[in-house]
């Protein structure tokens, strides 16, 4: 595998990290497996595409995608999930219904053609990295992934809100008993996690392009990342994303048509030894 392909794997891992970190935040704190996360990704990409096409600004597009998806997350959490709180299975299946709905709605709104979010002129072209020319935008994705990781780490480990989220992951009832409105922390986390899916859609939409089944693909990868990394662990998501991202690229290079099996391998090996994932803990 060449250095170029390794970079491809790393940039894909960075994208996976942005998407899967939102997924695992919600899973870890709220115990909600949001299967509409893939659909939110796709929606975010489409919204970003539309906004960038209209305004010509990549930054406004990114913000628009995050806001729009946070709004959908608000409706999902306050409008639907509140009726099935405390019942894991019903929650999961409900989000699955929402995923099917959103998926089809996107098809109605944007049609079945594939779109690519326009890249700003600054990020066009390629740069010379260690003896190979590499697209500038993909390096930007890598950087974005690192920034999101550092940002999330600081948020979770260095702020009061982060402390509340971590405490909530461990024992929501005790946090509530000590006078904190944990519901508000939950809601924030849900909206924030959704917004990360939207951001992921925007970033990914510019180099993987957006098409009707992209949501299912990204959801599969996110699930693999979370299954490998373990629930609610930031480091777990990072390691899981790196593994899945790089392995997927290796797979595509060596067995183009069976690349899916290559991410399957580590999942199998891992589950045999650690059913809760690398960094997962018993709830």
């Amino acid at each position, binding site marked *: 595998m060449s250095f170029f392909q390794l970079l491809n794997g790393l940039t894909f891992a960075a994208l996976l990290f942005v998407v899967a970190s939102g997924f695992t935040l919600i899973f870890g704190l709220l115990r909600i497996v949001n299967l509409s996360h893939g659909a939110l990704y796709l929606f975010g990409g489409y919204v970003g595409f539309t906004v960038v096409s209209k305004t010509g600004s990549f930054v406004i597009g990114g913000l628009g995608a995050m806001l729009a998806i946070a709004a959908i997350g608000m409706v999902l959490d306050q409008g639907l999930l509140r009726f099935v709180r405390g019942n894991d299975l019903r929650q*999961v299946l409900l989000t699955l219904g*929402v995923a*099917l709905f959103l998926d089809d709605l996107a098809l109605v709104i944007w049609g079945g053609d594939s779109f690519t979010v326009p890249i700003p002129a600054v990020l066009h072209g390629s740069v010379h990295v260690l003896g190979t020319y590499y697209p500038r935008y993909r390096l930007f994705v890598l950087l974005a992934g690192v920034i999101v990781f550092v940002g999330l780490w600081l948020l979770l480990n260095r702020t009061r809100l982060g402390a509340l989220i971590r405490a909530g992951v461990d024992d929501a009832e005790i946090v509530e008993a000590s006078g904190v409105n944990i519901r508000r922390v939950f809601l924030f986390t849900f909206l924030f996690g959704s917004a990360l899916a939207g951001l992921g859609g925007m970033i990914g939409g510019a180099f993987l392009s957006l098409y009707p089944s992209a949501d299912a693909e990204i959801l599969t990868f996110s699930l693999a990342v979370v299954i490998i990394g373990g629930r609610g662990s930031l480091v777990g998501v990072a390691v899981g994303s790196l593994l899945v991202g790089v392995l997927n690229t290796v797979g595509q290079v060596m067995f183009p*048509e069976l*690349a899916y*099996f290559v991410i399957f391998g580590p999942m199998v090996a891992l589950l045999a030894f650690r059913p809760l994932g690398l960094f997962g803990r018993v709830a």
Partner: protein
Amino acid sequence: MTINVLTSEPLPPAGTGGLSGRTLVIAALIVAAAAALPLVLSSYQVGLATEVLIFGVLAMSIDILAGFAGRTSLGHGAIFGISTYVVVYCSTQLGLHPAVAFALGVVAATLAAAIFGLLAVRASGVYFLLLTLALGMIVWGVCLRWSQVTGGENGMRAEARPAILANQNTFYWSVLIGTVIVSFAMWRLVRSPFGLTLRGIRDSESRMRSLGYNVPLHLFIGFTVSGFFAGVAGAFYAMFNNFVSPSTVALANSVEGVLMAIVGGVGTLFGSFIGAAAIVTLQNVVSGYTERWQMILGLAFVVVMIFAPEGIIGKLRAMVPRKTR
């Protein structure tokens, strides 16, 4: 953390042995009524009835796990679809006899289920759901990408049905016979000591473990057997549809199966046919007005989860004052 709250009703006491006279008469009447359907229905409606039977079997295979072992699988659509793919591939590309293709399809589905089962039995609750979902998605991804074998997005067309079953009604009857056989087998299975063990695992895994039962082994066998039945449904589907494409293994198919099992009432087994009839009818009514079936399916899922997670039968049971029992 209790996960398994979809089953609302305690199950009737099991182990009451074989068929009692009354059950036998009721079962015979239902089968006779089903067999008489082609005499009164149009050929299009017979096609729908065939679909109800096929998906009813799929939903039952899901219910074996969801209702009796407390494990909801989102990978059964993929297992079903593997069988469909193998049957179509064998009868077109390899030119095998339909019966051989049928058998190979079921074998392939059973093997796939065994692999799924090996991985999934260690997980429970939401993790089980996620894992089966991810496994199903992998199957979908392979079917979509491995275009030399699977025909990619375009799928494959086949004349998988043997000549003697070419007639719509004859095919319906043969599916009905198959359905009766596998339904009986599944009914026996959930009432057997093995089925009772599965229920024990559903209610308390740790209790069964401390009683000396090999929990993962039972779940593994349960999953594999359930996959076998899903494979039978998938093989019938290949002959019914004479076509297969990635949408047969897609998540929406697993979701439909789970929804049918839930609508019919998780843990009722035969309720699956009511669920299948409800969903297939809904699908056909809806597609008369709009092409947005997936959207309606998603909505139906949300509505059922919020208002009637115990299914139609459970809902009715709760509404009708109890006089029997």
